[in-house]
């Protein structure tokens, strides 16, 4: 792959197609040979494919820094050449795309490794070992698609990756399509996948409209060409339309209000999927899209404000819901929505570096949290398994299925797990502190930068700061609540007492992530601003903000207060088995709302889904079947056609055409009989015939 160029220049830009081809190769290898390979081999191949992708990303980062962050475009193949639309498959290597490549492939590789351990047990608990290979095939495909997304040089190529990761998301949410989250036979998981897909379709529709408008107005979909003509002819109406349409796509993919509803359900997928796709990488694609389109968003302030407000509102809204959740992954899911809100708010305010910074640190600590949560869930499963089979002593599959339904992810079933799972506990603590924004963990620096920008731009973006600050307070609170409920107090179930720690194949990647969660802030420490300077090459007009002790102080104090309150509520008097949440009493219906996600799903059901179903029913039964089929088709078309056919058949065809044909046939037949009757058998008649012929021929020849 352009190896000679690599050798000649000493840089590795020519290797960029490998970003896509390594994971594709891993996928194909497992698809073709995986059937005869052991689980370990399959996992190793897939992880190696992802790891090699990371290596390529590192080489690209090195090359880019050595060439002063200049944009490199690597042409791979001609793609679409129709009329004005001239698009090639070109890879775009700039500082922004490389950051995304590093995060995606780096975190992705760690999750691949973790998944070897996780899926081994998951498929065992669900009695279906054949799905192990399928999981890694999907995972590799996801990495390939994500690479296409971040490396594309045009909106359309980005869209290819966008749709590709959407597909992988769908496939992996519904990975256990024949189970529900409790392991019973059900279509719930499949429906969760469907929900994600449909919600994303709505967003994709917006993205498509944005692309159509872009092409219609600028005549291109290639990034530089679009931005170039946009800066020359900044038509505010058109650019507002494009950016707002694009925002619809962002709210879909990055789970913002109002399209966020799919993400909590997406937790139906195996936990590595939740960590990789629905926390660290895919859902940040919307943020990436806004940053990539920064030249457009910079041109229209009103849209930027809408973007920022959507992000801020989402951040707070999702945080309130997270407070009322009991499922360990659901809390993290709403937390993810909330944190994505932070990023979207940041990029909306033009704080692109802060957004990308938080994107990266969030990828570290949220992946860490999810994977640790997965470790906890599996630890609970192991405990459950141990109890179920400890008494019976023999592996009785029927007994396994008959037992009481147990939810290994429900925090009310846990308690005091730090004793059983100390490693996971410490890892989880690192993630929690990072997420809560405690100094000096990674989340502190990135979240602080966003709050700082919100504060600085408060006059242009009023309200954003307060919403985000409140969300940050709640973040610390719900994380505190989770820690106390899961790791402290007394075991609320027998299972919690028998929970077992996870193997190193799972905990070692977590340690790497924990390291990043702790020290990830170093990417863009005040003073050095490494990330800012790195992204300067790609995003115009970014500048390092100054560290503000006021902002940092306030947010830290808020976080500590929140954790303190959570200790008072959940730590000081640990929740007992069967006890209702202590917040329920003081908050009343507010907490009921939080518990029930503010009834948004129900609201969508009442406002959109049920009317839509009614409309569909009306269209299919009343309009299509009764009116169109029964009445129009049967009565009008069918009867009319029959009448016409009868007319054409009887009077026209039989009466005229057939009569002519019959008449012709009759004539032929009669002449045939006449001719035969000439054949009277007498030689004299025959001779006469010859003679007549002779006379006629001679007559003609001699007299003409």
């Amino acid at each position: 792959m352009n190896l000679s160029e690599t050798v000649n220049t000493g840089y590795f830009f020519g290797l960029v197609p490998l970003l896509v081809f390594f994971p594709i190769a891993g996928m194909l290898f497992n698809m073709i040979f995986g059937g005869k390979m052991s689980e370990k081999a399959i996992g190793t191949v897939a992880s190696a494919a992802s790891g090699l992708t990371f290596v390529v990303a590192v080489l690209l980062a090195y090359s880019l820094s050595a060439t002063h962050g200049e944009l490199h475009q690597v042409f791979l193949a001609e793609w679409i050449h129709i009329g004005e639309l001239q698009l090639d498959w070109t890879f775009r290597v700039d500082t922004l795309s490389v950051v995304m490549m590093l995060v995606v492939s780096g975190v992705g590789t760690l999750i691949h490794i973790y998944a070897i351990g996780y899926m081994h047990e998951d498929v065992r608990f669900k009695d279906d070992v054949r799905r192990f290979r399928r999981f890694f095939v999907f995972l590799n495909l996801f990495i390939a698609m994500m690479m296409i997304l971040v490396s594309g040089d045009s909106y359309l190529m980005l869209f290819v990756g966008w749709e590709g990761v959407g597909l992988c998301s769908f496939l992996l949410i519904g990975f256990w399509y024949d189970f529900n989250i409790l392991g019973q036979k059900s279509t719930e998981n499949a429906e969760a996948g469907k929900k994600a897909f449909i919600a994303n379709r709505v967003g994709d529709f917006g993205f498509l409209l944005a692309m159509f408008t872009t092409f219609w107005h600028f005549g291109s979909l290639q990034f530089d060409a679009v931005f170039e003509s946009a800066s020359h002819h900044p038509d505010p109406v058109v650019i507002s339309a494009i950016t707002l349409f694009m925002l619809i796509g962002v709210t879909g993919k990055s789970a913002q209000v109002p399209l966020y509803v799919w993400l909590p359900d997406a937790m139906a997928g195996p936990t590595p999927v939740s960590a990789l796709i629905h926390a660290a990488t895919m859902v940040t694609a919307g943020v990436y899209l806004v940053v990539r389109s920064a030249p457009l968003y910079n041109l229209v302030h009103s849209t930027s404000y809408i973007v920022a407000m959507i992000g801020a509102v989402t951040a707070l809204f999702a945080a309130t819901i997270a407070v009322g959740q009991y499922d360990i992954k659901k809390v993290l899911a709403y937390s993810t929505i909330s944190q994505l809100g932070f990023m979207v708010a940041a990029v909306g305010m033009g704080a692109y570096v802060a957004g990308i910074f938080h994107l990266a640190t969030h990828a570290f600590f949220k992946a860490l949290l999810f994977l640790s949560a997965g470790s906890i869930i599996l630890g609970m499963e192991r405990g459950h398994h141990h109890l179920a089979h400890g008494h019976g002593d023999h592996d009785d599959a029927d007994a396994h299925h008959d037992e009481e339904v147990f939810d290994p992810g429900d925090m009310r079933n846990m308690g005091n797990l730090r004793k059983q799972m100390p490693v996971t506990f410490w890892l989880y603590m690192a993630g929690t502190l990072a997420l809560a924004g405690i100094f000096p963990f990674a989340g502190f620096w990135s979240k602080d930068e966003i709050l700082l920008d919100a504060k600085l731009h408060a006059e242009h973006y009023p309200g954003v700061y307060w919403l985000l600050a409140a969300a940050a307070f709640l973040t610390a609170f719900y994380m505190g609540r989770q820690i106390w409920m899961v790791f402290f107090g007394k075991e609320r179930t027998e299972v919690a007492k028998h929970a077992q720690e996870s193997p190193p194949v799972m905990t070692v990647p977590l340690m790497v992530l924990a390291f990043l969660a702790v020290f990830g802030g170093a990417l863009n420490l005040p003073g050095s601003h490494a990330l800012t300077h790195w992204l300067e090459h790609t995003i115009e007009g970014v500048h390092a903000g100054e560290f503000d002790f006021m902002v940092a102080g306030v947010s830290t104090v808020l976080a500590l207060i929140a954790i303190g309150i959570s200790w008072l509520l959940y730590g000081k008097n640990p929740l007992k088995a069967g006890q209702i949440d202590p917040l329920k009493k003081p908050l009343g219906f507010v907490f009921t709302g939080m518990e029930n996600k503010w009834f948004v799903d129900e609201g969508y059901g009442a406002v959109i889904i049920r009317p839509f179903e009614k409309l569909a029913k009306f269209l299919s039964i009343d309009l299509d079947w009764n009116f169109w089929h029964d009445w129009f088709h049967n009565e009008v078309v069918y009867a009319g056609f029959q009448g016409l056919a009868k007319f054409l058949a009887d009077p026209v065809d039989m009466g005229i055409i057939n009569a002519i044909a019959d008449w012709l046939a009759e004539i032929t037949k009669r002449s045939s009989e006449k001719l035969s009757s000439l054949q009277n058998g007498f030689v004299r008649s025959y001779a006469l015939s010859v003679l007549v012929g002779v006379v006629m021929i001679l007559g003609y020849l001699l007299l003409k």
Partner: protein
Amino acid sequence: MNQADFYSLLPIIVLTTWSALLLIVDLFIDDKKKGITAVLAAAGLALTMGLTLSQTGQTVIGFNGMVILDGFSTFVNTLLLFSGLMAISVAYGYIKRRGIERGEYYSLILFSIVGMMLMAQARDLIVVFIALEMLSIPLYVLAAIDNSNAKSEEAGIKYFLLGAFSGGFVVYGVALVFGATGSTAFAEIAASIATGNAETLLVLAGAALILVGFGFKVGAVPFQMWTPDVYEGAPTSVTAFMAAGAKIAGFSALMRVFATAFPDIAVDIAPVLAVIAALTMIVGNVAAIAQKNIKRMLAYSSIAHAGYILMAFAAFANPALRDDAISAGIFYLVAYAITSFGTWAIVISLEKEDGKGLAIEDYAGLGRTKPLMAAAMTIFMLSLTGIPPTLGLIGKLYLFRVVVEAQFMWLALIGILTSLISAYYYLRVIVIMYMKEGEPETVSESWLTFTWGAMAVLTVVLSLIPASLFAWASGALMK
């Protein structure tokens, strides 16, 4: 008689000698073992065919220009010898079954073929007449060979009377031409006409009368009247031979005479040929519809096919198309000979000893009882109609192309319309075979089975690769 003379007629001389000897040898063959005579006759034909093929590509004029050996004669003679072999193949079991197996049957076929071959090689009107008589007289005898059967006798005598009648016209025509040009040799006649020395009216009258003679032989309207009666009355194996052999000989003579002796009056003759062709196609096809006897139906069918070949020949007035017309004509003769022999073989298979089993209705149920035979019959009927994938279609294709190129659009139109009519009676045979209940009795006789089987395969296979055969026909040019 020098060597060239001898060489030019070598196959004919060999075959004549062979037939004469066969008559004598036959005397010593037991009546129960006349099959030996058949085999010997076939051997003679095969030997002659080998000799003929060995002469491929050579041109020799012999006997002071009275005969010629050229590509055309080689091609036609090969086809004639093939017809002779087929005639023996279909006759072998049949005449035994009908009780008319006599040694002279085979000798007569051989003699007739000698006449036919001489016809193809003739280069002088006198030779043409001699050849005509040589091929006709054995046929008269063969038609009447079932002398215990009144119908066969009637066929023989009718054929003889009308043949003699039309033969008279030929002689008269020859005389007129001789009177006008002072020669009977084709080359000299043509030269005389070209230089304007000849009395045109006399030449035209003479040519017309000669045309009548050949028209009689090939069964063109209005000289076709004998055909149904003779075809029906003659033993079927003889009919099969007549249908193919006599037609090939008649057409080859017609082509030879009119292309080499009368090329300069072609413009005058062509309209006459065109009208005769049109009438022949119409009468043959229309009259066939009413027939209930398969032999009569095939007789009218053979008249119709003579019309198609004549149609191409009408195009010979255009010198640029002459070669195309001749090659299309002889290609069609090949197609017709193959299909016709196959059809007759099946007719013979169904014919019973008392002459029953010849009604078209007797074929009902053949599709069920003899699926292979019915399939072969279907192929032959399709080929006669001109439906793919059969040789009949290819033959018609070449013919119609020539006719259209010669600007005889009305003639091509009649050809197509009459083909349409022909579909009625050909397809009716298929319908009766497959869709009507019946228990047809068939005779299983290996040479018959071989004939219809091989002909069916040839009909289909050659239609898929017609180019090489047509290239051979195109190369068979007259010198």
